[in-house]
């Protein structure tokens, strides 16, 4: 028995439930048997990986899902040994550059060269397999966190070994990807599913798992699932996880009392409270309190940029003045830039709060 996110993950293109046109394109791609390098991007929990594996499944058959973990070792230029894990099947392998740290360039070069020098030999029916995918697929997760060096190394490799390697780059946003790579790949954007799509998936799961609701009224159930989907920011993975958690905690899910049956994550609650505090008291003492909370969030590995973003959106909900909202968004983007350029997140988070307080003060007075 596994988690629902795992259990109800579509295994092939036919069973994908939303984004019909993308699915059709992928089907066409899979039917041709060959495909160019792909760059698949979109928000997290939209189903990027699911679609990739479904496509690979269509091309290579179900063997793709038979995964194993290899440990590869590399020697860097300074003669140090690097070890990192590669998830692989007979047809593809999957790497995550954040495992490699600063040496991602070396790893990517070596790894791809290594794979490129393995050619497939097929003894039976030579003629038919001649055109049919004599390549291995390399999936690179979080491609946007690849360093510039690594991306530059990639661009030559993509052309040189194109006969027997296909790359699939996966990332959340393509703003960090250098243009030469964009031009060498087929860009596919997978948008988040809509609330309705998520709630229909959830109701499908609810039927299969025979989850009990306090009433059998379809409309009420749908409304509940809709709030659940909304609450998870249209992130399907999160929606499924939180639905499963709700279902495990309550025997029958109370539809009318959503405060009990909808799970708010602690860190989100913390940030929401923070925004309320900022609205109520704007002084140095509050700023000091905010600092303590910020430290708490950072020490729990919540990324600083996520904190900033969540805080900003929470603040925007609290105010109605158009000019103020514009100013806050402006501030948010400035500090987002500082966060991504710098290293001391706490400076910038506090700076944002201080500036936002001043802006609110000005707007209200």
């Amino acid at each position, binding site marked *: 028995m*596994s988690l629902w996110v795992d259990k109800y993950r579509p295994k092939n293109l036919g069973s994908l439930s939303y984004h019909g046109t993308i699915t059709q394109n992928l089907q066409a791609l899979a039917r041709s048997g060959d495909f160019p390098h792909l760059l698949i991007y979109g928000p997290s929990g939209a189903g990027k990986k699911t679609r990739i594996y479904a496509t690979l499944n269509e091309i290579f058959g179900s063997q793709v899902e038979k995964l194993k973990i290899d440990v590869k070792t590399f020697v860097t230029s300074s003669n140090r040994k690097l070890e990192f894990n590669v998830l692989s099947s007979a047809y593809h392998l999957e790497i995550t550059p954040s495992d490699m740290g600063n040496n991602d360039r070396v790893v990517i070069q070596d790894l791809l060269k290594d794979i490129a020098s393995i050619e*497939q030999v097929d003894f039976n029916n030579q003629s038919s397999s001649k055109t049919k995918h004599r390549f291995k697929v390399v999936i690179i997760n979080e491609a946007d966190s690849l360093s510039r060096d690594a991306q530059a190394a990639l661009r030559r490799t993509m052309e040189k070994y194109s006969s027997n390697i296909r790359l699939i780059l996966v990332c959340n946003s393509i703003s960090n990807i250098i243009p030469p790579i964009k031009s060498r790949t087929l860009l596919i954007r997978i948008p988040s599913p809509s609330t309705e799509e998520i709630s229909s998936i959830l109701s499908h799961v609810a039927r299969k798992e025979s989850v009990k609701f306090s009433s059998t009224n379809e409309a009420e159930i749908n409304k509940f699932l809709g709030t659940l989907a909304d609450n998870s920011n249209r992130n399907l993975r999160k929606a499924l996880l939180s639905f499963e958690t709700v279902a495990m905690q309550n025997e029958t899910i109370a539809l009318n009392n959503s405060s009990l049956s909808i799970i708010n994550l602690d860190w989100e609650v913390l940030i929401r409270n923070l925004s309320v505090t900022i609205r109520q008291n704007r002084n140095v003492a509050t700023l000091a309190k905010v600092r*303590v909370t910020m430290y708490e969030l950072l020490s729990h590995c919540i990324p600083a940029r996520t904190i900033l973003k969540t805080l900003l959106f929470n603040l925007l909900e609290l105010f109605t003045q158009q000019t103020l909202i514009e100013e806050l968004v402006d501030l948010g983007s400035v500090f987002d830039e500082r966060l991504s350029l710098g290293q001391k997140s706490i400076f910038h988070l*506090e700076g944002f709060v201080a500036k936002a307080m001043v802006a609110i003060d000005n707007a209200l007075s």
Partner: protein
Amino acid sequence: MASENLLGMELDSLSFAQSSLFGLSNQQTNVEISPISSKEMDHNSSVAIDDDGSTANSSTTDVDFSAGTTRSTTEEIDISPCSKRMKEVRLFSGNTIKLKPKPRKVLDVSEASLSTTESIMDMSDLFSRAKLRSSLKANKERLNEEANDEPKKIIKTSDVWTEKYRPNSFIQLCSAGNDRQYRSILHWLRKWSPIVFGEEQAQEEFRDSWNRTHKKILLVHGPSGIGKTSAIHILAKQMGYSVEELNAANSMDTLPQAGNVEFGRGSNVSVALKLKIMNALTSNSITSNGKPSCLIIDEIDSAINANDIIKVLNELVQADRSTRASKESSESERKHKKKTKEFILNRPIICIANDIYNTSTNRIGGSPMDKLRPLCDIIAFKKPIIIPANSSKKASGNSMRSIKDYLMWINERENLELDYQDIGEIVEVCDGDIRASLNYMQFNGGKKSFSRGYSSNKDSFNKVLIDKQMSWFALVDLLFKRDGSLSKDDNFNILFDSFMNGSCKSVVGSSSSFDKVMKGCFQKYLDVVHFQDDSLKKPSEFSDWLGFYDTFNSGTGGDLSQYSGLVGLKAWSLFSEINSTRNSNSESFVKKGLDYESFELGRQNEATTKRIIDKIPISSKLALGVNPDNFTMQFLPLFSKMLSPELSSRAKARMKDFEKDSIEKVANLVKEFGIRLENQRNLETGQVLLQYYPNWDDLVHFDDPHVPVPISTLAKHYQIKRQQLFPLIAAELERLDMTRKSSKRSHVTLAEEEKKIEQLEEKKKRARMSTSVDFFKDKYDGFHNQLNKVPKQDTELKMSRIWVKYHEGFSNAVRKNITWEDIWIT
């Protein structure tokens, strides 16, 4: 051994004799140092004593020194401690020595009471007694020294104070806020007593069959220079161990045996290392006086071959575990395991590290410390929290005071004439590092040469123009201070000069110390602003400058970092004020050391997340992704909720179906995700906590000021829940195991039968084969058949491919580049 004993006795008698010389005893004795006899017994710096008035003794023992060897055995001079009579020893040279039994009884009592940490004792009383005793001893020693030409006990190794004042007994140890950690270490070592010393001890939980601690290795970590190594050495000695030390320097990487062929297979280095560690664990070296050894591996995180060391440690623990398992299991199984060398770990191992969450270093596939941590009980030493010297004294914690007291004591010994505040400053400069403080004190000399980084009087601004060493802390203070007698512009110019050429340059010039300055400013500015105008204008302006600072320093265009000093000047122009002392007495907004704490916790949580990600089953990896942020933000909080379902009763029979299902599901998840259920004893409070391992509690629970339930009660709530839940999960897991095993067994029997049939067929085949030609033909046919047969059996395998690995490049054979197309024409 006998001669050693004898000499020890002699020294005691000597001290007695000398003390008696100074009138402590009314007996008339005449002490004389005879050069001949001392030459004879040159093993030690021992001295023979000629005693004239030796008629009062009833029993005498003769000790003959013939040709430098001792004939005497231990029994001959073994004197029961209670007998008050003197013994006389006649040396070969004709001299006689009086032997007096060592006054050991008093000592024994207090030591015993010291070592029983569990019983309730008045610690201060004990300490005062111990101090009294040591001072008596010291007095005696001094008397000895004065009486004697050559100093015996005090070995002058070096004049470096860090060595000179390295504490060598428990009461000399500077607590530095780590008392609790010391106690935990003692407690841990105490648990080894049953197996090492054969002591009787009440059976406690978390012991294995040999009454040892659950985890065999202790890992102590903390920042440098706060006395980890010293403390552990002392504590180990206190508990009666002799210390065997391995560290990054001593022969860890240049083992003489490393190149030896004898060690054969496997990596030579690790084999040699293992030998060394085993030697350290098992041997009782001559110097150790028959005490059991305790292995201390120092600086394990920075050792070059940390990987090897940890591998060896892991092997030891594994070997120990398997031996124990075989001992506990039935006889037949033991026979089976006889091949592997039996090994019982019966000496404590302590590892010391600075940084146990060391992920930034070279190894990507899990740093060695990741592998070590699960094997160990972990104790963290903490750095004392620095509090500015000019703030109220009472705010500074006990830890700080103990360090200062300790340095004060040395100060008095060395006549440095530093006052308490100077010492406080030194500690601040060195950031709580005791060793660094000592070095600083020694080499920056006494009061006359000791230059304060700043002084609190008015003319401080004139002083800062000289380019000299200055602490980052002093600079932070300077940035928040303004001289009332000067105009703001003049004041600024002075500060600017000092930044460019003056004393501040030493701080501003190095980016790491200036980083500390900026952190200090960041720490302080809110308090200052609160007392100035309490408006948010300045903080928001300062945030821009902090933004510049961060970009300058972390940007790729390295040259910009020279401008970062400007941010300090900006801080001064924003926040400096004339009477800066007024707000130092009030309570500060921001807890000190918050930055460091949150940083440490963050690293710990990162490591936990990584471990969890490594453990999740492969199939779930596809569904959950491998992005650690997703895990901390979405998966773990929800997963933790999933694993703690609400239960109505303790007994499974009385539960509702739904609850049974959920327990089953939880057990399945626990199994699938490779999570262990653990009983963890909190070393500090002694409470037993139920935890999942990897433990994500710290990661998931927030300390939220807005929530009415504080984090501690929340944790308690979880504990109560788990007490109910864990036995149920454990039972469920057992059941799952059983069902799996039984299904496996049926599987196995089937497979075995098939094997038998195959074997029979093979025998028949073999019988048929007569010539070698037939054999090959048969093989070939068989292979061919297989090739043809396989596709028919399984359609999936039809698609199977053959992958060929090749190297393209220049070939000397044909003197040209060979590519894949040349090898394989398609």
